[in-house]
């Protein structure tokens, strides 16, 4: 499927894609994490994609409220306070 699915630092690009989420969430054991970082450092396309993945994730995590409420609901003057 991908002509560039090559092995760098003992990891194929497909493998790096599979564990990129765990890498971004800091869930990998140290040696596996180091292997991913070595792959990203040696594979230009995976490094670019990894950067994009982490960048989007970072923006998503910063955007609470703005992301989930892009259009605040109009105020309802008749709304009353609620009780639990």
């Amino acid at each position, binding site marked *: 499927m991908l002509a560039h699915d090559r092995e760098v630092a003992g990891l194929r690009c497909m493998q790096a894609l599979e564990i990129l989420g765990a890498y971004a969430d800091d869930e990998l054991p140290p040696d596996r994490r180091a292997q991913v970082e070595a792959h990203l450092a040696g594979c230009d396309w995976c490094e*670019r*994609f990894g950067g*994009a*993945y982490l960048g*989007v994730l970072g*923006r998503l995590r910063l955007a609470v409220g*703005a992301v989930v409420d892009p259009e605040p609901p109009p105020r309802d003057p008749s709304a009353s306070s609620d009780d639990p």
Partner: protein
Amino acid sequence: MAGGVETVLDLKALAATVAGDRRAFEGLAGRHRPTMLRFARALVPSDAAAEEVVQEALLSAYTHAGSFRGEGSVRAWLLTITRRSASRWRRAEPAVESLDDVPLATLGIAAGWGAPEASPEHLAALAEQADLLGRALARLPEGDRLVLTLRDVEGLSGEEVAEVLDLGLAATKTRVHRARLRLMAELRAAGGVHAGP
């Protein structure tokens, strides 16, 4: 489980609630209501419905405060109650299944993996626009939107997300990753780069 100050406050508030302290519950509800509302809004079609769902969830939590077993966080417990409240409102379980039959490589390609014309800087710049990011999130399948809302927007741990959605931890982590790739594909499409699966 993380033992931050918030967790300790929540546990104390819940214990006080069980002992009959209504003000303690009001404080707890106030802290978690925004998160519960955002989560409910991802499950039901309107702000009004989300308010209704959260109202019911808080009432249920207050009534059954003694049922909290302490196995997860109070936050995850409240969000689980919210999910069940939303299910009753919908009279159906939310669709937490993402498109698991799509190969990961296909999702990756749609997200820009291996695409020589794709620019990470461009994608990050698109994501910086909150309205674009919000719209891309809204366009995702419900299951993807739910896991991303909980994991990446609200910051729940993988374990908490699994608890709230009643999924296995490994399945939850897989779904989060696939949902992120879908979100990237939506952003690329918003930026005019089309490479769908």
